[in-house]
């Protein structure tokens, strides 16, 4: 087996037994990136030198007796997460050349744990998109089929994991941006409960929806990487003071006697036949493992998309106001006065989708429209939360497809934003409700991976990991890797 094909927990065993060093592991991954990323474009910036220095340090720490699940493990970071001294652009031209002066809290935690940061992965600009086609720099290719998108917005991280260009990665999920690309690329992606992971240092898209989470090769790795980044952060007032359980320890408890709900509204007619078949087969697996599969209803599911596309752009319209070219990033060189400078910097610096959402959000908040749009959307959000509360009172977790289709072709939906938004219909209600979900591979359709979501109660990541792990143990889908 090649070093780059290892999972985090496999690599950790080898590191712990001195079979490999972090330096050799890091070198193997940098070589892999050099070999395949010229085609895939998963990374925006590769930090080879710093990564090797960190690996050296990790090996020294280990020699001094240190250990830990992430000590010496090379990871990739979505480019919306600030890394001190390492260029961070959020996939936007407006942040070209921006080097943060501080580490995001999750990055500080990873560094403390001894993880190696290989580089920053591609994303739709400011995480706005479902394909990385909205990146201001590059479109990442799906490692399973280079004509197809890897999903988005964390498409770079998902592709990097799927193509073994890192052992694991961080993504961010505002309406499905971790789970959807994980599904398209045949890897595991977990969106934690809102408030579980600090958002400090995550370049905000929609503040009430954003959450950082792991994209990895299997459920065990999801538990390990999640464990490393959770916890209350005094710098994030929305992060909760609630102790996290030991996620890895709870994985193997099985699903016998559990009630798993399947929301009727998520098994829609528009779904690809292959996706439906894969999901139904997965339900049989859990049934055989002793779980009780029941149908539940999420009556307001159909309103999630419109509510999301009012709330998220509204928040984004304010969050993106700071990018004016005065203090950092791109600044238009040829301007008459400050107002002209603001206009030109933003006109050139932002891409079309970002501008579309700023306008949408600005409109939704405008005097005379606020009640009809933003306020109404917040009321819908409350109803969706209630749907989840009720469904999760009856069930231990919910099962749903991650996406209605397999990865679409590059360029296929770029001129049809609405159709592209529809690719997120199974994921974004979860963000509105603020609960947690994990996408795991559950089969192939037309040779492309199909993903399945396990959704759980607020702060009950342990249960969704356990349900996902039981499935993973009973199947081999997570072992499939694309030919790169």
């Amino acid at each position: 087996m090649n070093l780059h094909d290892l999972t985090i927990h496999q690599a950790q065993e080898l590191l712990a037994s001195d079979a490999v060093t972090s330096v050799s592991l890091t070198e193997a991954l940098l070589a892999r990136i050099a070999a395949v990323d010229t085609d895939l474009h998963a990374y925006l910036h590769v930090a080879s030198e710093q990564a090797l220095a960190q690996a050296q340090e990790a090996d020294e720490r280990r020699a001094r007796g240190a250990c830990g699940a992430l000590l010496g493990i090379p990871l990739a970071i979505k480019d919306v997460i600030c890394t001190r001294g390492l260029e961070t652009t959020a996939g936007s031209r407006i942040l070209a050349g921006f080097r943060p002066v501080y580490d995001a809290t999750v990055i500080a935690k990873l560094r403390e744990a001894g993880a190696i940061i290989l580089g920053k992965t591609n994303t739709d600009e400011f995480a706005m998109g479902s394909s990385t086609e909205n990146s201001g720099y590059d479109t990442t290719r799906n490692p399973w089929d280079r004509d197809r998108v890897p999903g988005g917005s964390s498409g770079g991280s998902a592709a990097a994991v799927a193509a073994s260009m890192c052992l694991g990665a961080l993504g961010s999920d505002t309406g499905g941006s971790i789970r959807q690309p994980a599904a398209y690329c045949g890897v595991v992606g977990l969106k934690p409960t809102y408030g579980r992971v600090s958002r400090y240092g995550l370049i905000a898209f929609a503040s009430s929806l954003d959450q950082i989470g792991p994209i990895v090769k299997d459920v065990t790795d999801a538990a390990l990487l999640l464990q490393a980044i959770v916890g209350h952060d005094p710098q994030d007032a929305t992060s909760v003071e609630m102790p996290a359980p030991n996620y890895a320890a709870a994985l193997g408890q099985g699903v016998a006697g559990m009630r798993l709900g399947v929301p009727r509204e998520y098994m829609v007619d528009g779904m690809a036949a292959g996706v439906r078949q894969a999901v139904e087969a997965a339900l049989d697996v859990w049934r055989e493992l002793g779980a009780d599969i029941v149908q539940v209803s999420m009556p307001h599911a159909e309103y999630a998309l419109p509510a999301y596309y009012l709330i998220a752009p509204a928040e984004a319209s304010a969050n993106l106001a700071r990018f004016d070219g005065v203090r950092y990033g791109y600044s238009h060189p040829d301007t008459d006065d400050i107002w002209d400078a603001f206009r030109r910097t933003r006109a050139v610096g932002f891409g079309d989708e970002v501008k579309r959402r700023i306008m949408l959000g600005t409109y939704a908040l405008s005097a005379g429209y606020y009640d009809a749009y933003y306020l109404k959307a917040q009321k819908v959000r409350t109803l969706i939360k209630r749907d989840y509360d009720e469904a999760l009172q009856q069930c231990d977790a919910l099962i749903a497809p991650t996406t209605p289709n397999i990865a679409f072709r590059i360029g296929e939906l770029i001129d049809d934003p609405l159709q592209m938004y529809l690719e997120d219909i199974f994921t974004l209600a979860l963000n509105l409700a603020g609960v947690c979900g994990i996408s795991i591979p559950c089969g192939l359709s037309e040779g492309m991976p199909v993903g399945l979501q396990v959704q759980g109660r607020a702060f009950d990541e342990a249960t969704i990991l356990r349900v996902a792990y039981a499935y993973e143990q009973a199947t081999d889908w997570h072992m499939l890797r694309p030919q790169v």
Partner: protein
Amino acid sequence: MEYEAIIGMEVHAQVLTRSKMFCGCSADYASAPANTHTCPVCLALPGVLPVINRAAVEATVLTGLALSCTIPPFTKFDRKNYTYPDLPKGYQISQYDYPLCVGGHLDVQVAGESRRIGIRRVHLEEDTAKLTHTPDGSLIDFNRAGVPLMEIVTEADIRSADEAHAYLTELRTILRYLGVSSGDMERGAMRCEANVSLRPRGARAFGTKVEIKNLNSFRSVRNAIVYEIDRQSGLLASGGAVEQVTMGWDEERQCTVFQRSKEYAEDYRYFPEPDLPPIEMTPVEVQTIRERLPELPHDKAQRYEREFGIKSADVALLVAEHPTALFYEQAVAARPALAQAIANWMLGEVFRYLSEGERTTAELPISPAMLAELVALVDDGTINNTVGKQVLNEMMTSGEAAASIVERRGLAQISDTVALEQIITSVVAQHPGPVAQYREGESKVLGFLIGQAMRATQGKANVQIVRDLLLQALDDSQR
């Protein structure tokens, strides 16, 4: 037609906290070099998040309580969206529909009458950066960005420039009493906007209001309102109409100038700040803050009159500054029987000393007890009033205690009748002319003769005794 002015005021006051509103930077930036009190949060770098400064919330609640406001159990922050180079996030974190304090009032004295000004709300927000315009371009100093700022909004209850002035004065006194703001308008720690409209006296409906900005001193507030009332009544009297506009006060030309009209009013697109959970103020928390309320100037004034029997004209001066009032109270505590005498000394000699050197009470080199001791020495006749003033002057220079100065310099009053009788006898003998004049009925020469006797004792003689003895001597020799 006679018009009545309807005035409402909005006051922004920087809150005196150690750190800024949403980050750990020091809020005390007054003499700091530009952009040294900054961090990723107040510079609005990508990815940062605000964290509420609890001390600023408490200071605002304290202010609300002092203004008799209700503190609602639920309050939250909102984003106020607008673009300006001094606003690094492109929005200001403020409070829109659920302010920290609502529905209070402040009583002010205008021309001997008490007027109650309604307080609509007090809310908390963050200050902006400071722009400096130079010929080479504009400079931004982010030291001020994110400093906590409370906004105090009145009802449209003010009826004249004098009332507006009185309101501002009283408000500033309270802010200083509470220690929540320096209230320093000249340094921009307190800023003011006035909304002025006119209506025919007796009418119910309000006229069109004009907002006046750029009021940088108490004087400019008064002058701008007077000017604006004049301008509007002129307009109305000549059959014109007042437009709803924002005017700026031009300090140099002493007039209001047009800034922008209502059509260009900004749509701030307020929405709840998603980065900050709402705040719940429990009755217990409010009570804990209420217990920190000091005795306010109005209550102090009433107590001084009631307990110390101080004249009401004097009381207002004593309570105007909290440290002065506290100094006075401590002096009275040392000599409770001398409350009025201490008040006289405070208002006379101590205030003169402070104003001559533009000093504050905190800079006084003597303690309240030392002042009380001096007043007691005058009161019990150990020294006379004139010597007392000299002694106080020396105390202010050296910080030495009054008794010690009197002792060292032998300033104790001569009340010894035998010793004084000899002096009087010689004065009478040495000034036969004036003595003769007095006897002819020119009683005013008595003062001259007393002065001669005082001079002979280097001013230490007890004037009352000298006077009595002199009258006696003049009478005796007449017989």
